[in-house]
């Protein structure tokens, strides 16, 4: 915010000018009324009117400037904050994203930034405005009559405290209500995203019942909020009316006693209603500033979050040899998923990763592409620890097909081009050829330009998977990581893709995790993971020889085939 100091100072100055002009209005009006009572001895009516209008116009202009400066600044601050926030998000480590819920990050990006903005713009403007108007108004009133000013001096703190209390309560309830609102919207979100499951199991009524429960809770919170809110404004109004009544009584007796002019009373009463706003505003503004402060603290948690992906040095194009040294990993407060993995993978070789469900294959691959970071041990690319490499370069060297085919709600073309927007049409077609997604294009309504819906909902399972393969292949990386990426593809297509890939993989280090052993044909080396450890390692033949899990998995497929043939023969 330091960079906007000039704007803020200018704004503050304008607030000062505005208020010092504005404050004379009621006084002039009062004088005019008194002068009227005496038959206009001092000035003509036109003079009063001229002064009133002059004051109004000039303070109007400065008020315009003050809004422009101060509130405008808050929007600049907002933009800067949001940009900084996003920039930091991009730098944070995946551990952070595993820890933090999307909804929570989003609420910081929306609610908290808004709170900071409110504090830094309107909050700042109104606090200056309030203090000055209050101060000037009070001074004016004191200069007219100390006795009458007492009413205000007593009322002012009382009202401010009440406002502060109530708005605190309102704030607390608002937070509760926002939280509940958040639950309502995530319920809707989950219901819409999981609609296939809900309808397939005819659970609409159950989900609706749960939804009703959330709504009922929301209603309760809203009602306490409404009750508090409903009391607030009328209460303020009543308090001010009360002070007006006291003023009227005091002023009335003074006028009757000849100690006060009617005009002075009018001016005084106008000042009092003018002060009504600052008194309410003090409580409100304090709250605003507090909220802004809390918001800033929450934002700081992310902006200053130390768990960032370290930026290493640029080292230039790599060869693609991967080394794992004593690598161990556990997810947040979970058991160890990988323990003491050692592995040496020469550049350009192909590694197959096999293992039972949940044995840690995906985790291992995520560690290698630095989507996760190990608790202990290191991953080296061409002898250099990943953590010391420039992330951008590292990513340029690697392309990943994750087990979960995540696609964006975009056209198919843009999804494939996601990693390389400016790839040549030739490369683009080639990669769609390799992944065999090209053969499905004519089945899609708008071909490459088909919008594929959220997460690719309008594609078949295999089409989705093949799109993600195309996306990775287009990157032309040194290191290609394929995580169970042919599970939804038929044998024929699989065969074609593997055939194409084999040529493509030439010279690229490739890691393939798969349950289909057929996809691992041609691997230079295969490792078997069992409960986070490498239990077997070697070529296909060596592993068969070893008669371990791999051989068992392999024989299982073989055996079943033979069994079935045998069965046929018996039939």
């Amino acid at each position: 915010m330091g960079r906007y100091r000039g704007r803020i100072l200018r704004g503050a100055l304008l607030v000062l000018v505005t208020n010092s002009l504005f404050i004379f209005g009621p006084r002039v009006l009062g004088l005019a009324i008194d002068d009227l009572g005496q038959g206009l001895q001092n000035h003509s009516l036109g003079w009063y009117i001229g002064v009133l209008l002059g004051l109004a116009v000039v303070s109007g202009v400065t008020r315009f400037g003050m809004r422009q400066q101060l509130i405008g600044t808050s929007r600049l601050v907002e933009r800067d904050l949001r940009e900084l926030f996003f920039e930091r998000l991009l730098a944070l480590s995946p551990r952070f994203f595993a820890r933090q819920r999307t909804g929570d990050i989003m609420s910081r990006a929306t609610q908290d930034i808004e709170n900071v903005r409110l504090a830094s713009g309107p909050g700042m403007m109104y606090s200056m405005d309030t203090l000055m108007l209050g101060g000037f108004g009070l001074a004016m009133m004191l200069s007219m009559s100390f006795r009458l000013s007492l009413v205000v001096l007593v009322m002012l703190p009382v009202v401010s405290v009440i406002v502060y209390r109530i708005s605190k309560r309102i704030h607390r309830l608002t937070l509760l209500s926002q939280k509940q609102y958040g639950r309502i919207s995530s319920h809707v979100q989950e219901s819409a995203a999981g609609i296939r499951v809900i309808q397939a199991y005819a659970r609409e009524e159950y989900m609706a019942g749960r939804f009703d429960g959330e709504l009922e809770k929301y209603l309760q919170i809203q009602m306490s909020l409404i009750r508090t809110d409903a009391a607030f404004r009328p209460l303020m109004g009543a308090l001010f009316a009360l002070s007006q009544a006291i003023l009227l009584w005091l002023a009335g007796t003074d006028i009757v006693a000849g100690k006060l002019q009617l005009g002075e009373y009018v001016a005084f009463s106008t000042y009092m209603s003018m002060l009504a706003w600052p008194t309410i505003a003090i409580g409100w503004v304090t709250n605003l500033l507090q909220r802004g402060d809390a918001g800033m603290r929450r934002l700081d948690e992310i902006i200053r979050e130390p768990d960032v992906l370290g930026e290493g040095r640029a080292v230039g194009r790599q060869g693609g040899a991967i080394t794992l040294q004593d690598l161990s990993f556990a997810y947040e407060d979970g058991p160890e998923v990988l323990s003491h993995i050692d592995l040496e993978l020469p550049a350009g070789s192909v590694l197959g990763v096999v293992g039972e469900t949940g044995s840690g294959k995906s985790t291992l691959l995520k560690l290698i592409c630095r989507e996760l970071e190990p608790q202990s041990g290191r991953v080296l690319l061409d002898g250099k620890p990943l953590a010391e490499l420039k992330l951008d370069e590292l990513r340029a060297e690697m392309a990943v097909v994750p087990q979960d085919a995540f696609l964006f709600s975009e056209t198919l073309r843009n999804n494939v081009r996601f990693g390389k927007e400016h790839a040549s049409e030739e490369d683009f077609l080639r990669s769609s050829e390799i992944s065999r997604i090209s053969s499905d294009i004519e089945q899609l309504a708008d071909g490459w330009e088909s919008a594929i819906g959220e997460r690719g909902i309008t594609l078949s399972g295999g089409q989705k998977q093949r799109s993600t393969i195309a996306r990775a292949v287009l990157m032309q990386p040194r290191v290609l990581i394929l995580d169970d990426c042919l599970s939804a593809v038929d044998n024929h297509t699989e065969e074609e893709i593997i055939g194409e890939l084999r040529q493509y993989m030439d010279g690229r280090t490739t890691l393939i995790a798969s349950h289909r052993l057929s996809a691992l044909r041609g691997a230079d080396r295969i490792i078997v993971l069992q409960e986070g450890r490498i239990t077997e390692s070697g070529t296909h033949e060596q592993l068969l020889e070893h008669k371990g899990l791999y051989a068992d998995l392999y024989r299982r497929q073989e055996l079943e085939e033979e069994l079935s043939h045998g069965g046929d023969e018996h039939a």
Partner: protein
Amino acid sequence: MPDRRDVKGLDWSLLKRLTGMLRPYGWMAAGAFSLIICAALFETAIPLVTRHAIDVDIAGGDLEGLRGTILVFLLLVAGGFVTRYFQQVLTGFIGQRIVVDLRRSLYRRVTSMQMGWFDRTPVGQIMTRLTNDVENLNQLFTGGLILIFQDILSLVLIVGVLFWMDWRLALMLLAVVPVIMLATFQFKKLVRAAFRRVRALVADVNTFLQENITGMAVVRLFRREARNREIFEQINTRLMDEHLRTIFYFAVFFPLMEVLGSVATAGVLWVGGGRVLDGVLTFGTLVAFLNYAERFFRPIRDLAEKYNILQNAMAAAERVFEILDRHPTITGGEQLLPKLKGEIVFEHVHFSYEKGIPVLKDISFRVSAGSSTALVGYTGSGKSTIASLLLRFYEPQQGRILLDGVDLRDYRLDELRRRMAIVLQDVFLFQGTLWDNICLGEDYPEERVREAARRTGLLDWVDGKAEGFHTEVSERGQSLSGGQRQLVSFARALAHNPDLLLLDEATSSVDTRSEGLIQEAIAELLKGRTSVVIAHRLSTIQQADQILVLHHGELVESGTHRELMDHEGIYHRLWMLQSRNGAAASNGKPEA
């Protein structure tokens, strides 16, 4: 129903429908309106009391009278406070109840919609309808309509009083009204357009953020950080520019209103002052006038704002009604379904998701009760689509599907689906515990759930967890491995104990050993039940009683494994590919 359009003026039929929603709360609404009238009367009377105090009591030096007048003043204030309070609580309550009613019916309508609608409607849009739009619509009851009524009422009252006191001064005061109106509506127009752009940009910023946070891993892996930051900077700056524009409008508008207010005050002083000098106007009236002037301008100034709220609410209402007026095209019949035998017949079924691109062409087959059928074919050939049709997610354009000899359409939808269980190709897990995900809110006995987990090979893993079945699963099951997610979804289907089991690539992400164990474990369970299995790993389906081969949406082969191997068609080719070494391939040959 009118087309989607931006509501220009006020749409009376829409308004009528909206006020119709008040009907269940008729007497409450009536109460709220009478309270508004009372409050407005109280509040308008106050300056008159002050006038009385100045002109009669103070001018006459009657302190006793002044005391009485102030008492009246206080009574009016108290009355105003009480009526306002109850009115706001009442309107707030009505508004909230309507919100609940609306959300309930919207939710039920949305979840009963046919799948085709969900394919076209983004989740974000559905969320907006149920959250923001309903909230905006509520503004109509708690803010818009009532406040406008209230403002108009006090305007009328004030103008009445002004004319009653002194029509010349009243005219003077009213003279600035057209200028204020003009400025206000000009302002409203500018701000409305700007706000619309702001809203769109805010939505852009948030959607962008949301998608980038959920897809952060992919963004990273494909090095989109710099590019995405650039895109973000662009929309962010555009949003700021748009905000700055509205700030300009506001910075002009608010001071301008103050100036106009001062002009009116000056005018009153000018005309009124002369008349006081002439002795035709009392001081009290002049003061009351100045007082009313203040009360008079605020509602007019706010009218623009409230009109805006009203229009927003109307636009939201239109979108909400659009969903409420849309009836699901797939609904059930009357037929109950005590127990399913499970005979499925497809008769010349044609289906396409989008016009002109047939996905299933003239599909006919029969699955006899209690038998197992496998669907095989290249990716994208329409296998999952057949499962979707069985669940009545979509409706075939031609032909019909019979279950136990009755057209699917004649069954009650929930009954029909309750008898079936499917493992969807796209696994979806809810945020919640493993238990919730398996039971989906049914209170199954623990034994049944454990049994389902055992058969799918999940039990050891679950028991190894500290919290067992009460382990929390994160958004979309991201805290489980790919295979584990699939197994949970499988266990969900088994726990359901269906008469008809549909498995769409249910074990594609599971290792072969676990797959084999599952097959053994469910073999006895499937005895006597109909099952339809879709699988690319042919080893899992060769025992099926019947194998159907789909190719480009056509049923090209059907028969047992043996028959199809003899046929040497697509199935045979797929099979040969799977038996990856030549030995297995030549093993297959001699049988032919």
